[in-house]
């Protein structure tokens, strides 16, 4: 952990690791998708639509896992000022947003044939939607700063405030839902999952975990390179004006 704190060392290690990680991601996801679409049996009630669950459930798991990674990294930014922690937070936000969006979209596609509606104000659906909104807010916050150093700590604080709030929001939404109990809604705690469905699901979950880390490390590397380019551009802009006019330098910001 501490040895990797140097971005240069991180770049070297991750550069060697990343092709293998992507290869493993592709292999596991290929096996998982094959299992999910061709091997797993159809559900006697849900028919073919049960296959959506093989995407939906892992996406939901890792949308929450991603926020945990961000919160851990945010502590790293605030407490230890770990130079990579902030890069990790920034890289994870869009990934989490996409995973949450995939959860919502696949859930909605599944809900139309099963529940007869694209959307219900169910406690689970609502809390995932709130999580999605929090990701969007963090993305907007992250983009609002032009200086990555200042953005880092402010974003870290916001991530942590959100992390404390997520269980409270979840609890309150559950409360709200039981208060407004609608007429008839599908219950999740029906029959236990059979191994023929569970095994492809777990393979898909492993694939999603690999996918998350592969995406995360790739995004972190891109962010480090982006910052390097920014720094080089700033140095160049400063150098070109000559030593005498250093105070009146106008630096060109690279487009992010």
């Amino acid at each position, binding site marked *: 952990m501490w040895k990797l704190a140097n971005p240069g060392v991180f770049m070297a290690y991750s550069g060697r690791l990343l092709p293998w990680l992507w290869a493993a991601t592709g292999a596991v996801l290929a096996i998982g998708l094959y299992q999910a679409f061709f091997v797993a049996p159809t559900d006697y009630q849900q028919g073919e639509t049960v296959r959506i669950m093989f995407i939906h459930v892992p996406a939901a798991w890792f949308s929450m896992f991603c926020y945990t990674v961000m919160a851990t990294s945010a502590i790293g930014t605030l407490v230890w000022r770990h130079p990579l922690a902030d890069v990790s937070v920034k890289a994870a936000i869009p990934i989490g947003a996409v995973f949450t969006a995939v959860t919502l979209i696949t859930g909605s596609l599944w809900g139309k044939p099963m529940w007869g509606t694209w959307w219900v104000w169910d406690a689970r659906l609502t809390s995932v939607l709130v999580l999605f909104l929090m990701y969007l807010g963090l993305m907007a916050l992250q983009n*609002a700063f032009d200086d990555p150093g*200042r953005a880092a700590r402010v974003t870290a604080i916001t991530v942590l405030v959100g992390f404390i709030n997520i269980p409270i*929001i979840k609890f309150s939404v559950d409360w709200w839902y039981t208060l407004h109990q609608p007429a008839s809604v599908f219950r999740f705690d029906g029959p236990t999952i059979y191994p023929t469905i569970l095994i492809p699901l777990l393979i898909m979950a492993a694939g999603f975990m690999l996918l998350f880390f592969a995406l995360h490390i790739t995004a972190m590397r891109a962010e480090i390179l982006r910052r390097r380019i920014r720094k080089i551009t700033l140095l160049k802009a400063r150098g070109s004006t000559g030593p005498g006019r250093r105070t009146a330098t106008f630096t060109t910001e690279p487009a992010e």
Partner: protein
Amino acid sequence: MGSAFLALLIRDTRLAFSHGSGAHLGLVFFLVFIVVLPIGVGPDLNLLSRLGPAFLWIGALLSVLLGLDRLFQIDSEDGTLDLMTMADLPLELTVLAKTIAHWLTSVLPLVLVSPLLGLMLNMSPEGIGMTALTLFVGSPALTLIGAVGAAVTTALPRGGMLLAILVLPLTLPVLIFGISTTNAVIVEGLPFRTPFLLLGAISLASLALAPFAAAAALRSGQG
């Protein structure tokens, strides 16, 4: 330290009442919001009385949100905030004093005027009383959570919309427990005590935690 805290509290309160402060605008917005809703929903008095608590709560929430950017922005623009950061009084207490002053001058008036607006929405006396009571208990949480958002966005030139996007999801629990307490009284057979206590708990927890988060955000935003 106590006197500095009090002095800051009094300063902010007096500034809010001074000419051109805009502290009363939240109140006007609240009124406009409550006038706009029946025009959208229709003048059905039964429907309005049923939706009344929700309207008042959402109106108060939006009104609080719109006023929040003033909490640190003005002091940040003229440099007062930098002086406060360097002062002997810990920044956490500075934030708390400013937030209390903000609540007293911008949010408490909303609570006080809510019974009047409740009458316009044809709400029952119990409904009006409960809405005012829950707003009184819950609005400190809205202000304190909002203060964190305000501190985060102070460093940004135009943080108003961003502030709302960041703060609104975090205020959902306050809204839920506030409205469900009120509905418990109006609609029979629902527990009243539990959501009310939870609402109070959120306010107290925000009181304990929000000043630290807001102060940390202010410090890092300035650097």
